[in-house]
């Protein structure tokens, strides 16, 4: 019996583990090794160059632009998305059940579209001459506000961030709504009896009790902000432009590998990105643990 159970467990786990090791872990390990070589992507061999690729990263101005832009994304996208998500979710709590349900579905729509489709659609919206945004501004007499959104260095990254926020906010509305629904109704009633307004209720009751969902959201959105490759590649001038204004690490990595044939150097970028993402996740989760202790 016992023997049979082990056999069953092994039979169920081993294939999945083997697939994971072969197709996920081993490529990662190999990327670490390749980042120390000068592999071109087509040669049968690669020679070892030590940490040269990593040293180059520090002097590569386009890569540094990418790091700067990713940091801006990291600072803005999670904060804004979570802010809007929480706002909408707590508004939904106050709206009639039917209407709230309908809104939740509408907010979730962008989540059903592939990010690529979203980026293509938004590049139409941003078209300076025929796009929805500028046409809308002109229609209400705000001609002075129309711009070439994606072609002006000051606005291009903002335009990209708006798309990232728009595409992800619906998911977090649903996530936070579910968390808010999990809060016992008595707590809200008690707060109301104590004379707390909506604002005070949100800060003193809702937010502390959905804190864990918010922390998870920070991790997810942080990882998304460190990527942003698809939207940048499809929407922006260049892509990655104008003049590096929307360059992200993933974009640099892709270009270095597939246009310049420097897979070794590109792997070094990938490894750097890997550690940045890992650090972010660890930090965010650590911060979460401390908060929980404080609450207790």
């Amino acid at each position, binding site marked *: 019996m016992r023997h049979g159970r082990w056999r069953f467990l092994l039979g169920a786990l081993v294939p999945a583990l083997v697939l994971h090791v072969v197709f996920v872990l081993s490529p990662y390990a190999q990327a670490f*090794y390749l980042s120390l070589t000068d592999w071109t*992507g087509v040669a*049968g061999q690669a020679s070892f160059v030590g940490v040269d690729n990593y040293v180059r990263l520090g002097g590569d101005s386009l890569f540094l632009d990418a790091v700067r832009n990713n940091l801006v994304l990291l600072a803005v996208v999670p904060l804004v998305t979570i802010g809007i998500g929480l706002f909408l979710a707590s508004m939904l709590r106050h709206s009639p059940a039917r209407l709230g349900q309908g809104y939740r579905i509408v907010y979730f729509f962008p989540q059903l579209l592939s990010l690529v489709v979203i980026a293509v659609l938004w590049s139409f919206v941003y078209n*300076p001459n025929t796009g929805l945004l500028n046409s809308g501004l002109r229609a209400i007499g705000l001609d002075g506000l129309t711009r070439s959104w994606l*072609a002006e260095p000051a606005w291009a990254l903002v335009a990209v961030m708006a798309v990232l926020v728009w595409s992800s906010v619906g998911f977090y509305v649903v996530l936070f709504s579910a968390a808010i629904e999990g809060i016992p109704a008595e707590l809200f009633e008690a707060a109301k009896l104590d004379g707390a307004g909506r604002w005070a209720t949100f800060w003193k009751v809702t937010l502390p009790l959905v804190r864990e969902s918010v922390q998870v959201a920070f991790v997810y959105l942080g990882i998304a902000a460190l990527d942003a*490759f698809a939207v940048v590649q499809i929407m922006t001038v260049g892509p990655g432009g104008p003049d590096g204004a929307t360059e992200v690490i993933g974009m640099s990595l892709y*270009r270095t*590998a597939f246009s310049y044939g420097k897979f070794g*150097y590109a792997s070094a970028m990938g490894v750097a990105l890997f550690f940045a993402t890992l650090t972010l996740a660890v930090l965010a989760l650590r911060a979460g643990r401390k908060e929980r202790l404080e609450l207790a």
Partner: protein
Amino acid sequence: MNPESQLTRYPTRRTLLRTAAVAAVTVPALAGCVTSGSDDEPAAESGVEKTADNPLGVKTDAPLEVVVFKGGYGDDYAIKAEAAYTAKYPQAKVDHKGLQKVGEAMQPRFVGGNPPDVVDNTGAGRLDIGTLVTAGQVSDLADLLDAPSLDQPGKKVRDTLLPGVIDDGTFAGKTVALNFTYTVWGLWYSKSFFASRQWQYPKTWAEMLTLCAEIKKTGVAPWTYQGKYPEYINDPLLTMAAKAGGLDLIKAVDNLQPGAWKQEGLVQAATAFAELAGQGYLMSGSEALSHTESQAAWCQKKAALIPCGSWLESEQKGVAPAGFDMVMGTVPSLTASDKLPGAAIQAASSESFLVPAKAKNVAGGKEYLRYLFSKESATAFAQANSTLPAVEGATDGLTLSSGLGSVRDAVTAAKTDTLTYRFRTWYGPLAKAVDDATGELVNKRISPADWSTRIQKAADALAKDTTVTKYTR
């Protein structure tokens, strides 16, 4: 959508979709090949005697594998040449593959040492030819070039190609690729639109500015360009610089000579384009438009002129209204003391065919190219695709559309005065630096002096970089 290739780097929606999907995962995934693979021995000579009838020593029963990019031109032309090959060598079994993602499919086969015998390395995502050369993955085509042409008696293959075709495929002194189509860059306009407004296509830049002023008065934008991909407006700028400074200017640029980008011709050409932008002759909003959007605006007569390569006519099929009659004009000369004549054109070949060094049937691969580059095969291609093939005289006696006719006339008028920059294919990072700088220049964010300083800095950095293989011409 976009039949171009080697020299046109413009992504289509399909490539973008793919790009987005694979980028995150591919780098580690591809790595699997090299860390475990080993270098294979290059294929030996076929060992068959070379005769007048079989100048490349093809083993008559050796199978042949041909991989062709199946893009805007389809792959019928390649299949026709394969049929001609099997007619000559009935015992040879030909394996044909028409692919859209040639680079993706071929990369593991190059790494694994079992590439096919002929590869048409074309389309978005093709393999970087410079990288292939450095890795020793492509064979020298010298014996093919010296072999007799298939259907032009008394001529070698080398003598049947248009000017520049051999140079385009030559890396570090070895010709490793033959490009099948011939692309010319210029400024496009609608012949009927110009005739109805009595506008004359200009021969010099001064005339161009006068014309632009006249066009602007009528409410039409004089120029538009494919702003999302600034390389499009680079082409006329660099062509004009080359006309002013001559072939020495191009050589200095391609050879990464110190101060090459500060040469007078380049600074003057940059100044000319800064003025074009400064006078408001570029359609507003162009800077953010993709190639499809700007070309559509041009077809709707919102702008009079647009820079593009000779693929434009086939790309705008179905977009250009009937009677639009687009024609390509040669880029105007910059000054009265230009070193090259006004008829000089920027031209280069694309649709790059190569024979992998580790192919099993190298001789057969080269022999196949001899069939493909025969005049008969090229003429059939021109007829089917309204595109100029790289074989001289292939369009003789054919009735051509307005666009292709204007391109052929430009090639005829230019005679041997064709020019091409090689740095784009040799040094990707420099091409990116030039694109970015030109984008800033025509958006009035940097001055012509800054433009040349910036690019020079990038070129100097590249010249010092020991990890980049250098080429000279």
